[in-house]
């Protein structure tokens, strides 16, 4: 038993750290670290830098550019990326549709989509959630009917993140309404420019516009855009969701956020002294840091356990990472509110929520505090809410 990283692991970590900090533009990384929104071209630019190095989709099969890393390397890569403020390669491309196509797609689909997904030549979005379904994802109602050489899709998706930027959407559609709900679903790739698709932005309470509704009205999609077999879409979706293991806790992101909080707490004064010198604040900060250190160790234990596991088979421990990771990410946003105090109140200039075009007041870093707090409430809701995660763990430990 040796709890330290090997020399090779440390060398890899240092290489990743150097690359992220030297090759990814400082301006992009600062925006991430400061909690500001990135423009589309910044995300694209960052991913292409990674892809040029072969690091946009390192976990893909080797023939499609994967790196064949150990779980520890993957962990170190993600942790360094998050700590450096490098935007993660678009998850819809590299963690979701990519692995599904690589595993279940036709050779033609692989050739057509995978290289473009890795390089963000195609921007993908996810067509899973529907208004009526919520946590009961399999109850989806968007239907696809085969009409000659085309699927005809009708229905509505929601919470579609960054659909406004997307070139393609991967959809779960009901293709057989007569069987058990999980058994009549297919996985279909749809060009966003197809007639009949309408994207309607949903403004979120932080003033942002990162999610959308996507409406399908008699949308005709070539038959060959079906992935794998018809009515097997639910299996592919489970495979997709089961691939998210490490990284899900976003320990690196929380570390970077806490570092930022320490920095800002050195700038904000209370009673004439920097807040970072205040005992109560330091204790609150330390309490979060302790939980985060514990989560980091938990994550390393899960990583070490990865070696023996099959791909696409979720480890119940990943539910713990999601659960605790979301709570800690949210805790950091509350600390940030504490730091900025009254200056959390005014809306920032960049924010579109006010319906006015005014510059903000107060320090710019203070203006992101409340919107981040509001926005990050989503972390315990999306990707399987914390209640769903608890159900999963309960089943694993109790068997009910």
């Amino acid at each position, binding site marked *: 038993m040796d709890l330290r990283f090997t020399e090779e692991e440390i060398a890899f970590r240092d290489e990743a750290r150097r690359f992220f900090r030297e090759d990814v533009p400082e301006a992009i990384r600062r925006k991430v670290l400061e909690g500001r929104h990135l423009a589309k071209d910044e995300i694209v630019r960052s991913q292409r830098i990674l892809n040029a190095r072969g690091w946009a989709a390192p976990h893909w099969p080797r023939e499609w550019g994967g790196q064949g890393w150990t779980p520890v390397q993957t962990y170190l890569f993600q942790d360094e990326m998050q700590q450096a403020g490098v935007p993660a390669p678009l998850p819809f491309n590299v963690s979701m549709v990519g692995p599904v196509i690589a595993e279940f797609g036709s050779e033609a689909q692989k050739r057509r989509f995978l290289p473009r997904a890795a390089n963000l030549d195609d921007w993908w979005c996810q067509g899973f959630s529907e208004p009526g379904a919520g946590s*009961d994802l399999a109850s989806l109602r968007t239907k696809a009917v085969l009409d000659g050489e085309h699927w005809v899709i009708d229905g509505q998706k929601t919470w579609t993140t960054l659909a406004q930027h997307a070139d393609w959407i991967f959809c779960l559609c009901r293709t057989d309404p007569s069987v058990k709900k999980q058994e009549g679903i297919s996985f279909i790739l749809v060009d966003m420019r197809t007639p009949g698709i309408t994207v309607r932005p*949903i403004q979120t309470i932080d003033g942002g516009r990162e999610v959308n509704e996507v409406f399908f009205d008699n949308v005709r999609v070539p038959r060959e855009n079906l992935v794998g077999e018809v009515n097997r879409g639910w299996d592919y979706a489970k495979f997709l969701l089961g691939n998210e293991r490490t990284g899900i806790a976003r320990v690196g992101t929380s570390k970077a956020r806490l570092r930022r909080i320490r920095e800002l707490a050195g700038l904000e004064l209370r009673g004439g002294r920097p807040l970072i010198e205040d005992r109560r604040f330091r204790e609150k900060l330390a309490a979060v840091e302790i939980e985060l250190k514990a989560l980091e160790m938990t994550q390393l234990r899960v990583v070490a356990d990865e070696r023996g596991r099959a791909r696409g088979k979720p480890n119940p421990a990943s539910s713990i990472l999601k659960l605790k990771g979301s709570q800690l990410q949210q805790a950091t946003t509350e600390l940030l*509110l*504490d730091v900025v*105090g009254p200056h959390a109140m*005014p809306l920032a200039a960049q924010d579109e929520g*006010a319906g006015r075009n005014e510059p903000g*007041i107060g320090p710019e870093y203070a203006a992101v505090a409340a919107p981040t707090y509001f*926005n990050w*409430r989503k972390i315990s809701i999306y990707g399987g809410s914390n209640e769903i995660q608890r159900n999963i763990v309960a089943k694993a430990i109790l068997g009910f």
Partner: protein
Amino acid sequence: MDFDLSGDQRLLKESVDRLIADRYGFEARRGFMAEPEGWSRANWARFAEQGLLGLPFSEEAGGFGGGAVEIALVMEAFGRGLVVEPYLSTVLLAGRLLEEAGEAALVGRIAAGELLAAVAHVERHSGWNLGDVATRAAPDGDGWRLSGTKSVVLHGDSAEQLLVTARTADAQRDRDGIGVFLVAADAPGVARRGAATQDGQRAAEIHFAKTPARQVAFAGDALATLERVRDQVIAALCAEAVGVMAKMHAITVDYLKTRKQFGRAIGEFQVLQHRAVDMYVALEQARSMALYATLMAGEADARARAAAISAAKVQIGRSGRHIGQEAVQLHGGIAMTMEYKLGHYFKRMTMIEEMFGNADEHLERVATAESIL
């Protein structure tokens, strides 16, 4: 002991509740926020008509002599409606401070709906501490000239008169040497910039460069009066918070009853039931402490008053955060959208948690005082 409302109080409550129910629907409120000042002059006139703008002032000052209970009734209703008009800033803060200074004429104009005023006290590094003042007042003939910058001045952008804290003497964080100065918003050397706040209200940053000002007079020292008025405002804010929390709880319960998943109302899931119950307990505890703050807002002993008000603010802060976060979580994604009402309550609650000091800061005040039990 008697928790029943008097006849007059019941009438007041009914009329304010009706006003909110009739005029403050979700869509209507969106309209008010889109008006040039970010709130509705028509509503303001209605408030004046119904006597709300003069409510807290003595009858000599043109008011209606309402006490903490009456203010709490109004504020709880305003919380349910998420009212965006400058009631707290103009009436409860500036108006009450002017009343304490014996400025009956100005108070009368506020009561009549003819004057908007704001209190400028927050600075870049003051936090919510009224005694941490860097803005300076220099004597200038009969009057004074102010220099400094105030931030997060609630509704400071539409106010016509500003009440500004500034030092005439002593060091930045001394209790002595603080005065309150009346400044016309269009006086020379005033530069202000308004912004919406996170909860759809308004605030301003205001610079003073040798701005001519008149000092207002208090019987005791200014800071003690400021703190008393601030404590009364916190009591009012606690009542507003109860309105906000009660709505969040009601909206959530309603959602749990009607939203179906996995073939049944999600409120049938025991886990969600118990969490709704814990929200309810937090709400009732907050309601109790808002009542306590109402009772203690007029307490003569400043230290007992401050401890009680701070205790209430702690409870409101803790309950508010718990209820807000749980309300969002139990809803799921829908609560994150601007189109759905819940998130707007959540945002207002978050700002109330922060306003005039968060729960931690007030806990410290309670901890250093005598026991409240």
